[in-house]
């Protein structure tokens, strides 16, 4: 593990946990618990991002219980997608970020729907399950309700996340951006 990661990973995990916690306590309809993962994935590449995601999930388990550990897959997926987006200048403008975010949201939504349906029968954390229950109440079969609920929330969440990360990357000082060529490409510099 490179010395830079030793400093970057803890900071990024802290971002995941703290921002995620704030979002949860304000009971926003988004999780925002992958900002750090995405940032590190963009700055240093997939392995770093995956590491951040894993550590975040392990520590988040301490706060909310280890039953959600399987969702670490989403952290890995988002790290992968963020790294991909970075390579293709996906953070150059707010619009591009939003588009990439929405696309990634669909993917993450489907995957988390599978986890949520088969391991938890569709009942996981607050917001998304509430929506699921609503759709179920409207008479949709459980699988459809769960899938659409988690796709909807993930599209929203990842769009916001990508836009925020894009804004952060574009605001980074040249000295930092200069050290991370991929990130520079990500914001089209």
């Amino acid at each position: 593990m490179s010395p830079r990661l030793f400093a970057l990973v803890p900071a990024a995990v802290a971002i995941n946990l703290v921002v995620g916690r704030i979002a949860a306590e304000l009971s926003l309809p988004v999780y925002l618990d992958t900002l750090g993962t995405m940032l590190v994935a963009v700055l240093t590449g997939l392995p770093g991002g995956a590491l951040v995601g894993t550590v975040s999930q392990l520590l988040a388990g301490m706060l909310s219980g280890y039953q959600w550990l399987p969702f670490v897959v989403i952290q890995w997926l988002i790290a992968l997608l963020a790294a991909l987006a970075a390579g293709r200048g996906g953070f150059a403008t707010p619009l591009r970020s939003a588009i990439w975010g929405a696309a990634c949201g669909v993917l993450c939504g489907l995957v988390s729907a599978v986890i949520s349906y088969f391991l938890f029968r569709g009942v996981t954390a607050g917001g998304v399950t509430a929506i699921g229950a609503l759709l179920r109440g409207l008479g949709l079969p459980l699988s459809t309700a769960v899938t659409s609920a988690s796709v909807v929330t993930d599209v929203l969440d990842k769009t916001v996340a990508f836009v925020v990360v894009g804004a952060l990357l574009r605001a980074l000082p040249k000295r930092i951006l200069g050290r991370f060529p991929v990130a520079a490409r990500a914001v089209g510099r």
Partner: protein
Amino acid sequence: MTRRHPFTGGAVALAAIALAILLPAPGGTIALYLVICAGAAALGAGKAIRLGLLAVVPIWVLLFVMHGVLGEAPRFALPWGGTLSRAGVDWTIEQGSRLAAIVTASLAFAVRFDPHRFLQAAVARRWPWSAAFLLVATLDAADRFGEQAHRLREAQRTRGLRVKGSLRVRARAIPALVFPLLLTSLTEADDRALALESRGLTHHGPRTAIDPPADTHLDRTVRWASLAAVIAVAWWRVTAR
């Protein structure tokens, strides 16, 4: 009360979580939940029970709504009218108790977790340094994050930013803080890398535990016992089929 070895708590918590998954619900999981609560209270982690409830009650409600109320037939009638799904209510109780057990065990572990004793133990046991460091440094990073938030907040207040008062005032102050906070934590991480390197924290090699926590017979017994318990239950579940 003498502190147990850091690994012991972890082993017990892991075992509890494994059992919650293995034991037959609802009987087994409910019993386990009660045992965990008792254990937590006895080990001075009673806080975990309260926090655990705060975390699972909403999930219970959602379970009940999603499966009990909106569940499939066969349904049974309630004395005061309305019907519930038989399977749904069963699942609500099964999954509800299982999650309660896992959450409480996790939180009890978290409440009793002391990062620095853990680091000492990990070093003494020659655990992979990066893993141990990341875990501990991250918990510290969360604190530093808080300190940095405080520093920035003070700086902004000395420039005239209002953070107290009506909800609107406070809400407007949040983005003013969050964005720079994320940025500085990234830029500072960059400087910190230099500090960590020059202090040898990124160096791969044998390290010395300054005050390695004592590992008693009791600790070892407890850890082996938890492992045995998990294996036994797993065996029983498999053969019971």
